């Protein structure tokens, strides 16, 4: 029987951001649909609404013209909407069969029979009695898919399914998805990988800033056209004057940066080489999860990568920890401002003391110099217009913008020669974003350098002198930002190549 899923005028508003703005879409079985968009475009919110995890502020969902009341994941399951999340929801120590039988309403014998039927039909082979932790990422995903299939779903939603798969596993997944589609299951495929959209899907809906900006047949699209739609033809308004000049000194140089991790959710970095000149901002673009976390931690010294050379102001610093790197006048602003860059339970002045460098005298002969720390904290609060002057306040009571100002202020009190930021304006409101951007531009104006790792292309185009793109742990060539267009960035971020 044909399935018809219609989303009508869905809106979801979070404080400070419109996640879904009047979204209407129509899907029919027999086709594979792609939902494409950057981080924060609203794809995940829409999917969570469909799977009943959150409820919309406005709008309705119709399945075969029946109005669905999706108030909980259980309801979504009853309505035969299956969902495979990017991160698996499996009990690692239980066996495959136990995982599948947890929420099944039938006895083990008939369940086993049904599972074996599914295996035969789709050519799956997984040992049902091994613990899930022994499976590869692709096999775990299959277990999730089987769990959905056992409920004979009408709709199957896949959220960025290939992010943890190998090439081989990706191919197998595509073959299965096409089979499901032939059998009448409606498939919605969420991704930011352009090539996958073109090779797998029939129709593609592009989302940007909570809105659906385009719906089209994939056969009429190319990587470039999709990239343009995804990133948008937005031009930076206050573009800073480009600082680049060929005869400036390179103050920071990375050679042969390699990193290998056993964790399937971490990304391996492959032979990264780049350098930063005095007074320059090097932007590193990319969709999140392509190695930015690992790169930031290696640059800050939280991870020491073997056989890598990092030269800063003519000194080899690859083996130094973050505190030692700070003494050489580097500063770091990590992505996770809430629980890494600062500790919410600590008072403001205690958080300031985290950037403890020798000349600060925050700790003299191993003792806390509370007076000095508080003086310094007061200065940061007023210099960086944080909206409090109470250094005894716990930092959990600061808003995101004020917390980020405090962190930047703390990192900048050493007058560092190089500041490395990772998504510095993530989740902030427009006013705070502008303030942070102005601060970053000011740093470059004072002949100090910055490395800006960001998933926000607009921000990168506005602030960077040169831009490179990181994709699956590899760095593209570094381009002067006047040669970069949003379209080019989009192609590189989606794994395509230019020239």
């Amino acid at each position, binding site marked *: 029987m044909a399935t018809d899923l219609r989303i009508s005028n869905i809106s979801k508003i979070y404080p400070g951001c419109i996640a879904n703005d009047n979204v209407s879409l129509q899907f029919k079985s027999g086709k594979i649909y792609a939902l494409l968009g950057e981080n924060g475009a609203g794809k995940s919110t829409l999917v969570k609404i469909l799977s009943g995890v959150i*409820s919309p502020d406005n709008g309705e969902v119709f399945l075969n013209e029946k109005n669905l*009341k999706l*108030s909980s994941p259980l309801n979504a399951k009853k309505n035969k909407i299956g969902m495979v999340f990017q991160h698996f929801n499996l009990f690692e120590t239980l066996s495959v069969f136990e995982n599948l039988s947890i929420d099944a309403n039938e006895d083990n014998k008939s369940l086993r029979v049904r599972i074996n039927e599914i295996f035969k039909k789709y050519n799956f082979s997984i040992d049902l009695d091994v613990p899930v932790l022994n499976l590869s990422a692709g096999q775990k995903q299959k277990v999730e898919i089987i769990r959905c299939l056992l409920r004979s779903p009408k709709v199957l939603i896949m959220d960025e399914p290939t992010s943890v798969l190998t090439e081989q596993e990706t191919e197998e997944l595509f073959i299965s998805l096409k089979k499901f589609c032939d059998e009448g299951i409606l498939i919605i495929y969420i991704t930011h990988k352009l090539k996958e959209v073109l090779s797998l899907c029939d129709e593609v809906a592009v989302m940007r800033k909570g809105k659906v900006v385009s719906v089209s047949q994939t056969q009429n699209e190319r990587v470039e056209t999709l990239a343009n739609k995804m990133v948008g033809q937005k031009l930076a308004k206050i573009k800073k004057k480009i600082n680049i000049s060929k005869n400036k000194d390179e103050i920071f140089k990375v050679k042969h940066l390699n990193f290998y991790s056993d964790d399937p959710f971490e990304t391996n970095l492959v032979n990264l080489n780049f350098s930063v000149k005095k007074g320059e901002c090097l932007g590193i673009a990319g969709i999140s999860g392509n190695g930015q976390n690992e790169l930031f931690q290696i640059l*800050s*010294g*939280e991870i020491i990568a073997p056989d890598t050379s990092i030269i800063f102001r003519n000194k080899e610093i690859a083996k130094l*920890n*973050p*505190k*030692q*790197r*700070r003494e050489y006048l580097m500063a*770091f602003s*990590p992505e*996770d401002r809430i*629980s*890494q*860059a*600062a*500790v919410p*339970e*600590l008072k403001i002045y*205690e958080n300031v*003391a*985290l*950037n*403890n460098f020798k000349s600060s005298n925050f*700790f003299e002969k*191993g*003792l*806390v110099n509370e007076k000095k720390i508080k003086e310094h904290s007061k200065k940061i609060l007023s210099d960086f217009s944080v909206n409090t002057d109470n250094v005894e306040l716990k930092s959990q009571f600061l808003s995101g913008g004020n917390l980020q100002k405090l962190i930047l202020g703390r990192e900048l009190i050493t007058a560092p020669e190089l500041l490395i930021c990772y998504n510095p304006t993530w989740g902030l409101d427009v006013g705070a974003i502008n303030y942070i951007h102005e601060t970053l531009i000011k740093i470059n104006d004072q002949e100090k350098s910055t490395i800006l790792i960001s998933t926000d292309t607009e921000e990168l185009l506005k602030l960077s002198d040169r831009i490179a793109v990181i994709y699956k742990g590899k760095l593209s060539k570094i381009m002067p930002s006047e040669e970069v267009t949003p379209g080019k960035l989009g192609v590189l971020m989606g794994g395509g190549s230019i020239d």
Partner: protein
Amino acid sequence: MIKIEKRNDVPMALYFFTPFIAIILTILGGGIIFYILGFNPIEALKFYFITPISNLYGFSELLLKATPLCLIAIGLSFCFKSNNWNIGAEGQLTFGAIVGGGVALLFYNQEGFYILPLVITAGAIGGMFFALIPAILKTYFNTNEILVSLMLVYVSKLLLDYLVVGPWSNPEGFNFPETRQFSDSSRMPLLFEGLRIHAGIFLALAAVMLSWFILYKTYLGFQIKVSGLSLKTAKYAGFKGKTMILVVFMISGACAGLAGVGEITGPIGQLHRMISPDYGFTAIIVAFLGRLNPFGIIFASLVVALTYLGAETAQIFLQIPKYTGQVFQGMILFFLLASDYLLFFKVKILNLKKNELRH
């Protein structure tokens, strides 16, 4: 349907008040247990909590039992505050007692003012060394310190067993499993004639003051605090994580070792099998009841010491086993964890039907 939510803002005053609530609930719970066992609960509780400290001797016994608990808990607070779960203080206590006792036995027939300081130092070093084993395994081989420190407890207890029945047993002791008596120079000076309370209490008080200073006034204390709240932040700030793990385990082990040596040079005066009624384990409860705060730990060690004494009195007057002491200690921990849970989370009872109507 019941929904559990995290509270955003927990008032500090209430945080330090919940241990008292836990103690009151423990007393009530104890009363109920006594009632079920057929005793008059008021009278039984009086035997348990009031009779033991109604005279000077009882009060001295209370301080005597609180001393090792306080010392060990102070040491443990360094570990627990920095997210290192040293469960093996009992083993560190035992090993400290073995090393300290070994030195005391060397001097069994000598007198001299220098002997006691040597014995005490040896005990602290012994405990420190024994705590270093789980710490080194954790930092360099990624082992779980909970398992390693716990298993080492049995290693040190069996070692003590072997020593007191074998090589160190008293040649004139008719094969009793115990060593010679230590010489007077190896014994802690008594504070009052006729009471067992000894100079070890000053070691405990010194540990309290010193730990307060280290935890709240030094860079090491700051690092311990940050690491306990967020390991990610500690890494980002560039603290030397491995060194810190070693240091907190050494402090913790030294305190447990001191407690052990305080027992054998204080009330016991020799080595035998039963040098500690599980002070090392009970001190974990003391540390948490005292909120890992040095002054809170003084208070908590007195409360928990009272459960040891009360159990002994109850055994004499009510003929119930002294292991009821452990029941009380267990109840304190249970009620403390329960009230903490309600402190940090709120329980909401949702009316499902109403909710569905709204959608």
